[in-house]
């Protein structure tokens, strides 16, 4: 009871204080002329333009400084440079990332006169020796990386922060060693980050126009958001996270529109449809068009062929499948290879030992193994189990046929039976059985299942895969990378996998072996084949699926891979390139001051929101409404960007590197600006959304940081630059460092730099 009393008593006083506060606010914040003179100057368009110009110039200077250094292939330039050369040569390649950024590199290479002959095979290969116009290619990410800085400034400015605050956020990106190192090389991240920041910018512009819905400007920024989003997604797989971010923001937005006070359902549906067009349809069409260009530019066979389905491969000119695929007929002698490990199905006269090391017993039959090299013991002859005509198409082996395979050199049929295989007790042993002994005829029957085939489709060499399923026990012929012991000459084990549709139990027929005197009637009888056509959407769907599968499959360990939890704290970097003679190295690492500022800002932000939630739960409202609004909506959006670009990595099991954090780092720089504004002053520029025809006029407020803003920014920039300059040799890969210098640059003990001097052993 007493509590309640106190509450009611304090209420009038509270009201009074509030009124006082508001009057005070009237005086100070609502009159633009009562701001500090410095603030007034800085907030003019002219001052803003000058700041942008300075920032942009510096950004270009820092990113283009010694861009020709090193004149060697660095880190993932191995991949992305190579892809550019494939575009120029038109050879089909396969990669897990969508093609937009790589297309840009191809374009940059083409503009700068690259002929595509150089294949970027190894890190450290010389560009100058091979006459590669690499500076032109590196200029592209450098330009995009430099332009990211003014975009960051514009994002902050548009979100209503002061010039000083906007410059602060931009400076964190401007002087960041990781962003610089990443944008000076032929890598995709600069493109990704540039378009991501543009997407954020466009979406904010769009949001600010929310009271002028369906105006031309509104449509313009909506479509721009969609277009930039498509470019982000098209640059790198991670770009999908930007799509998710915008998606979540739009859902929140739509949820607010659903409120019945906002209008009828018709009104809601109009909004819904507008967003579907702008943020789903248009981006998707743009995304598709990247692939359209991609396929159009890569008409000929190349290193990516073997990833694709046979139907796809036949659309590439010069593809081997297209040129030399042959139908297999009964009594042909053929060789077969396993799809993944590429071993031939092989057999030889040696037999399985009666007893294995673990005490299990074998059938002591003839060994059937996987062998990596061409050999006459790889020859198998296809026997029919039905009557076939003398000539004609009746002799062709077809999908679903039951066949026997005769090992030519030992004249015995392939067989499997319910005996455990040498290495895996769960799988069946494969062996052979003499041709003339009919006692085990049933166990030598196999069904030929061509993958994705129609009934009656012919079995062809090189074109398409098959599974060989045993008729009686329903196991499928399978192999794995484990070697058999010495008694089988360390060849690969072949066994029967109990899952008849096992994905890795796929094989292809390599070739038809012809006797010397036999004439090859098949190739001659067919005219030179033209590449087949395939529906673009089918191609697109196939490639998307493969990209996803391979992206998830990148799980091999890498010495410089690191876990996401290390990233914000900058605990480890990546060694991009080293040169032993001159002791030069490029080590991808961020600006320690900038990154740690961002971490501090993030924790302050979470703290403020938490405190605000708790306080409001207890009916206190410690933060004035406009400021709170800004913290939740504007900084909240940045926080969403940060979280969505960061959290999913915790769930991924693929290889992760610190450069995956760069988009999140950019978002955290935006939050750092918002927090600085909050800490320095309780003022905001408000409202910032453009007033619509029906919206009520609101009392304007003006942000005023005063003199302390420029001073803090100045000091901070000096610190940032000092830190940047200190670790710059690692970023630019020049000049070379002595061992002691390397040691002194190793600011955190977790950084693994090369050429460190040995510390004298302390005993």
């Amino acid at each position, binding site marked *: 009871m007493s*509590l309640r009393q106190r509450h009611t008593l304090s209420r009038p006083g509270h009201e009074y204080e509030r009124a006082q506060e508001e009057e005070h606010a009237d005086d100070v914040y609502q009159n633009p002329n009562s701001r500090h003179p410095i603030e007034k100057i800085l907030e003019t368009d002219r001052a803003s333009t000058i700041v942008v110009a300075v920032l942009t110039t510096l950004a270009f200077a820092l990113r283009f400084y010694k861009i020709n250094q090193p004149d060697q292939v660095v880190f993932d330039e191995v991949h992305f440079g190579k892809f550019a050369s494939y575009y120029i040569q038109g050879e089909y390649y396969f990669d897990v990332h969508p093609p937009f950024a790589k297309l840009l590199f191809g374009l940059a290479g083409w503009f700068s006169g690259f002929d595509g002959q150089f294949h970027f095979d190894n890190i450290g290969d010389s560009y100058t020796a091979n006459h590669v116009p690499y500076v032109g290619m590196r200029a592209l990410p450098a330009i995009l990386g430099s332009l990211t800085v003014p975009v960051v400034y514009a994002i902050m400015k548009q979100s209503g922060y002061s010039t000083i605050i906007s410059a602060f956020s931009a400076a964190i990106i401007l002087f960041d060693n990781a962003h610089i190192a990443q944008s000076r090389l032929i890598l995709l991240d600069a493109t990704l980050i540039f378009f991501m920041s543009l997407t954020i910018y466009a979406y904010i512009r769009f949001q600010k126009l929310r009271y002028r819905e369906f105006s031309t400007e509104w449509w313009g920024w909506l479509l721009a958001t969609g277009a930039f989003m498509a470019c982000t997604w098209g640059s790198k797989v991670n770009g999908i996270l930007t799509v998710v971010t915008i998606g979540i923001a739009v859902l929140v937005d739509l949820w607010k529109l659903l409120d*019945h006070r906002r209008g009828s359902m018709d009104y809601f549906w109009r909004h819904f449809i507008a967003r579907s067009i702008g943020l789903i349809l248009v981006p998707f069409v743009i995304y598709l068009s990247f692939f359209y260009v991609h396929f159009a530019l890569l008409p000929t066979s190349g290193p990516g062929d073997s990833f694709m389905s046979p139907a796809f491969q036949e659309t590439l000119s010069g593809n081997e499948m297209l040129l030399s695929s042959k139908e297999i007929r009964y009594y042909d002698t053929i060789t077969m290879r396993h799809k993944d490990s590429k071993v031939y199905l092989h057999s030889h006269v040696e037999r399985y030992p009666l007893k294995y090391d673990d005490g299990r017993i074998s059938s002591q039959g003839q060994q059937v193994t996987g062998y990596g090299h061409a050999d006459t013991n790889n020859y198998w002859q296809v026997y029919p189990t039905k009557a076939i005509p003398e000539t004609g198409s009746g002799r062709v082996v077809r999908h679903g046929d039951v066949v026997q395979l005769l090992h030519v050199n030992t004249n015995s049929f392939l067989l499997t039976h319910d005996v455990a295989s040498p290495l*895996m007790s769960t*799988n069946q042993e494969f062996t052979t059985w003499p041709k003339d002994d009919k006692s085990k005829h049933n166990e030598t029957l196999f069904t030929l299942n061509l993958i994705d085939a129609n009934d009656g489709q012919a079995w062809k060499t090189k074109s398409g895969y098959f599974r060989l399923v045993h008729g009686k026990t329903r196991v499928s012929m399978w192999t794995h990378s*484990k070697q058999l012991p010495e008694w089988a000459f360390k060849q690969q084990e072949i066994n029967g996998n109990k899952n008849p549709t096992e994905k890795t139990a796929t094989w292809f027929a390599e070739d038809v072996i012809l006797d010397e005197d036999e004439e090859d009637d098949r190739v001659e009888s067919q005219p030179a084949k033209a590449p087949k056509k395939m529906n673009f959407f089918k191609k697109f769907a196939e490639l998307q699926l493969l990209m996803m599968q391979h992206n998830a499959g990148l799980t091999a360990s890498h010495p410089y891979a690191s876990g996401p939890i290390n990233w914000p704290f900058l605990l480890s970097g990546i060694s991009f390139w080293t040169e032993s003679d001159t002791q030069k190295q490029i080590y991808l690492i961020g600006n320690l001051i900038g990154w740690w500022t961002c971490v501090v800002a993030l924790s302050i932000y979470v703290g403020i929101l938490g405190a605000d939630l708790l306080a409001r*739960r207890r009916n206190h409202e410690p933060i004035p409404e406009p400021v709170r609004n800004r913290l939740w909506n504007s900084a909240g959006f940045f926080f969403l960007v940060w979280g969505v670009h960061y959290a999913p990595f915790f769930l991924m099991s693929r290889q992760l590197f610190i450069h995956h954090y760069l988009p999140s780092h950019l978002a955290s720089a935006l939050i750092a600006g918002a927090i600085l504004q909050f800490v320095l002053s309780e003022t905001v520029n408000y409202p910032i959304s453009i007033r619509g025809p029906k919206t009520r006029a609101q009392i304007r407020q003006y942000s005023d940081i005063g003199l302390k803003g420029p001073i803090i920014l100045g000091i901070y920039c000096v610190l940032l630059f000092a830190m940047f300059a200190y670790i710059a040799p690692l970023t630019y890969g020049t000049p070379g460092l002595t061992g002691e210098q390397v040691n002194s640059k190793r600011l955190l*003990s977790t950084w*693994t730099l090369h050429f460190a001097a040995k*510390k004298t*052993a302390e005993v």
Partner: protein
Amino acid sequence: MPSAVAVDFGEDISPTRTSSDFEEINYPSHHESSLPSYYMEDKARRRTKGPVSIMEEEKVPLVPQNEYFDDEGKDVYNKRPPKSRVSSGRMWQAPPPRPASLQEFFLQNMEHIPPIIYTLLSCWTRFHNIGASDIVVWDEAHFGKFGSHYLKREFYFDVHPPLGKMLVGLAGLLAGYDGSFDFKSGTQYPENVPYVAMRVMLATFGVGMVPLGWYTAVELGLSQWACHLVALMVLFDVGWLCISRFILLDSMLLFFTFLTVFCLTKFHNQQHDSFGFDWWMWLVFTGLSIGWVTSVKMVGLFVTALVGLYTIEDLWEKFGDLKMPVRDHVKHWGARIACLIVIPILVFMASFKIHFMVLNHSGPGDAQMSSLFQAHLVGNDFNKNPLEIAFGSRLTLKNMGWGGGLLHSHVQTYPVGSSQQQVTCYHYKDENNEWIVLPRWDEAEYNPNEPEIRFLHHGDSIRLSHKPTTRNLHSHPIPAPVTKLNWEVAGYGNSTIGDQQDHWIVEVVDDVVRGDIKKHKDEKEQRIHSLTTRLRFKHQILGCYLRAANAILPQWGFKQIEVSCQAADATSKNDVHTYWNVESHWNDRLPLGDQKYYRSPFLRDFWHLNVAMMTSNNALIPDPDKEDILASKPFEWPFLHIGLRMCGWGDSQLKYYLLGTPIIWWGGSLSLVLAIVTVGVYLMRAQRKYVDMNDREWNHFMYVTKIAFLGWALHYVPFLVMGRVTYLHHYLPTLYFSVLMLAHMLDHFVFSSRRWTQKTKAIVFGVCATLIFGTFWWFRGVAFGIAGPVNDHWGLLWRKSWNIYN
């Protein structure tokens, strides 16, 4: 409008009242517990533009049904005004009067008749023909064996906490089993193993699931129809049935999971009387139950998380209650911390304490524990080690990292790097773990006949010679095979060949018993002791530390743990992976030790064992080299894509196939989807200001939905993210929540809806019950055992992906 209006008695009292008014109310102002919680006024489904007025609540007719007054005619309602706001829990109900006659007693307890019947039925399903298969089925091979270890009191190591396995041991003890059988998979039980009695005892936990399911449904406020359905589904799911009938941990895990949910719902319904006796009782039981379920299997942490989320929401609600005194806030927090955090941890630790107390003999799990712990096990001779290490001592070195092994070497060489002899870390005792401490190459050769014994001290530089191969422990600037940033450690040379790279500096970290012995003045105190002294080995030339972390060598290294040498500046001082201790120690010239020198504190053992369990649990990742036909992926579970053969599939043997009752699994999974859609639609309608339910109804609807949906998600999503091997039976606790959701959805749309007549509801119930029982009866064979050739049993292959037929 604050949501609490509906039930907050203090809110809409006119301002003229004084606080003493509470005492004078002679009748409660409303009494919603007498209404079914699904009560919905016809007119409620309408749209209001303005704020929903309090009038809403007043329209609720006040129909007290359970109006009991005891003989003295006292108004029992007066005594217990609700103390705090209640969001959806049941209101306090007056206890019924004492039964005057037997008939009255029956009438009062009518509600307990159905669960009793269901329990009796479950006894039949669980115990029917339980001993039919007299062979070791499936994981009985593991858990039966662990039970035997308890009876033989031999220390073993396993990834699961001990409570469940101790109960298996207890069942064995009660059944008169002596622990002599080794439970080899697929073998026949010998005469002296009372496996039937053991199975029956463990199946009793399975029996207990049924009444718990019923009463949980009652506590969740579901209608009688829905309660019957929950009980029927728990009773007739062949998956739960099958898994409960063997010597496995799952029946216990399921029972305790059910129990935890039951206690939680019971506790929720005591909210009207915070800090009352019942409130405390159910809170304490929830805590105990959490402790038990996590002590059976770590999966119990998921249901713990459910309780945690519930508690967080509850406290958040209370935090917003401005009228609650601070003292009550503190009490609420204190009660939760004490009952839901402290009690479970105590239960968990107690189970380990008993585990250590029972297993006091040396056994197969020794090597997972610290050397010091092993010294206490009966049958272990470490405590006979000579205490002080000297030059010429033969010893084994144990890595002190979690689950660390013994420094090991064998004649096989590295196929990469230097091609010298491999040095690894190995978990089993073996002659290849033995090393001899020798002086440096530039010192006089060790002479066993020298009269003075040279003891080992901090800072001494030594050479370690591998006993069986005489190779020296050696490191050189060649990258290690797996941890490429470290240097390789190899065995090099022999007793006469070697170089400076064989020299290691012994650094003492501290001594577990004697503390920092480096600071001691007395030379004798500075000596290095076996077992208790923690050491590091620093390479004299490279300055790197000998380290064995959790990097596993490929097949050529027999999947043993890689040993490497990590640069000093990359090594943290506190990295236990660089700490070693002497485990076995032989030296003929020194006196034997005594147990009294070696002590191992419980907390340290407890922690060590838990970290070791975690490490090996996470190491259960799918092995690409080993195709596991039994393993399955989580997304194959909800719609029962696969089943699991639990034993051999020969024609002559009884075959068990782990498979759920399809109707229950499919219906449950569909109901989850339906729940998401329903909540989405309701939320959107609320956003458009349609009023479908009043606040109390909405809160209750959401409460049940949250328990079922979050429970399901918490038990399911982690498996999607986890890297380890997953099996179908991991879905069994999860299934419970989808069953609850199915009942809840049926309840919401059919049984509690006013749209349907009683007759329609009865028909729907009849159809559901028949389907459940029918499919159960159809599939009963998979749990009771399929005799004869499986292909003779027609019609079981409802999905092509099941490998039930040959």
